């Protein structure tokens, strides 16, 4: 079997996000007391200090805040050139991800993108993004 990407170590504070991804969803953590959305997840709300939280499912629509194209070094389990993106979700949180179905020269700041779930050959699923309007 070919090498696969490095899997995220899972703990109390992040496993739920990857479980949602495995179900095809992009999750956002939401404070159950003041309703503030936060990402990356953490166990306490930085606004009101509540420890109760729930998840909401993101629409998957966003725009590119920034990006880079990784070319070297090349690690087993990833395809290069690898486009890494910072996405501003329409819900207001920001996350790091990967842009697929797009050539490096076609990436631009502010471009609209849509989430899709990518599945590796070994069955691992993770949210990635494609240019908005592209056929997923």
């Amino acid at each position, binding site marked *: 079997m070919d090498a696969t990407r490095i899997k995220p170590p899972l703990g109390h504070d992040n496993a739920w996000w990857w479980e949602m991804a495995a179900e095809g969803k992009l999750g956002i953590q939401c404070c159950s007391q003041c309703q503030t959305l936060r990402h990356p997840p953490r166990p306490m709300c930085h606004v009101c200090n509540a420890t109760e939280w729930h998840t909401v499912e993101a629409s998957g629509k966003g725009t590119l*805040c920034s990006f880079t*194209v990784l070319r070297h*070094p090349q690690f087993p389990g990833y395809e290069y050139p690898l486009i*890494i993106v910072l996405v501003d979700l329409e819900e207001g949180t920001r996350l*790091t991800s*990967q842009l697929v179905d797009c050539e490096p020269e076609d990436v631009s700041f502010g471009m609209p993108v849509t989430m899709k779930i990518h599945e590796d050959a070994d069955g691992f699923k993770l949210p990635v993004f494609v240019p908005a309007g592209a056929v997923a």
Partner: protein
Amino acid sequence: MSLEASFLKNKAAIAGIGLTEFSKHSGVSELSLAAECVYAACEDAGISPSELDGFVSYTLDSTDEIEVARAVGAGDLSFFSRINYGGGAAVGTILQAVMAVATGQASNVVCWRAMNGRSGQRMGQGVSGNIISSDLIHWSWYMAYGMLTPGSWVALIANKYMDAYGVTREDLGRVAISQRNYALNNPRAFGYGKPLSMEDYLASKMIADPLCLYDFCQETDGGCAILITSAERARDLRHKPAVIRGVTQASTRGQEQMTSYYRDELLSLPEMEMAARRAYDMSGLGPDAIDAACLYDAFTPEIIMQLESFGFAEQGEGVHMVRDGALDIDGRLPNNTHGGLLSGAYIHGMNNIAEATRLVRGESCNQPAKSVEHVLVSSGVGVPTGALILGAD
């Protein structure tokens, strides 16, 4: 500025600096490098190792202080401490030493960093290796996507900044070449005798757009130690003291280690702005009083951004200083006159503190013609960090 912080001003000084040879393969243990540089710092100061009573290093340093203490023949230790966050620790170790000396906890404190950074554990390999322990969950957001190296983390910020302010690859090249030009005169530097042209720079391979090979610092085997004692005692020692006018650590709200992507300020370095504010307040100095600098330079764009953080240029205008040659030896702010981490050696910023000391002594291999009264040093960019202002006595 609080009374507590200004209390430290002028209390302590750098009395000695010690360096090993810098190479890509030391062939010796990190303990050996540590002992060698610590001993060299004692020799430089004219202090017997038996007088050392304080040791400070980085959490990433592999060598225990008591191992170094035994190796160099130190006496009883009353102070030992470690600072986290990679290169962000450089100035933090100095703050520990200054506080220990100013409060009487120790008299002669040595801060060191010794690493087989090329032949052993390479920082450039990021989290693809095994440097991560307690903050695995933080890195988990990046590993699965292939963001495994410092270059990948920095590129997202650099690209955004360059797009916002019209900074070009040529501008990054100007930073790299300025520091390489200094390295040409420094026999310890990787870049000694190896000129870098803009043509070479632009032709080098892209690593993480917009960063190419020469935008990255070295990976180096070597050690560097800084010996701190009271300003009073330093005046009686071998060299002109580099008095510590201002020193602070800094981490701001919402900071992550290298990946502070989720706050509003993506085009500036909030930690460096905080470090600047505190170091200037403590010293009673401002950017106009700074004659030269050793700004942390793991990556070229970080130099341009720090010119703004420390008030040498307005937001978005740091690049004009670079284009005007301000960082060169006859410029407004000669910077990293030893070649820095980019073209000299990567000893996690400790070697930048050593160079700042030389500049204050008037002994740099690229000593500017003008009088150098105050030198600013920063530690790691993107991590919890700090700033230091050294002054001539």
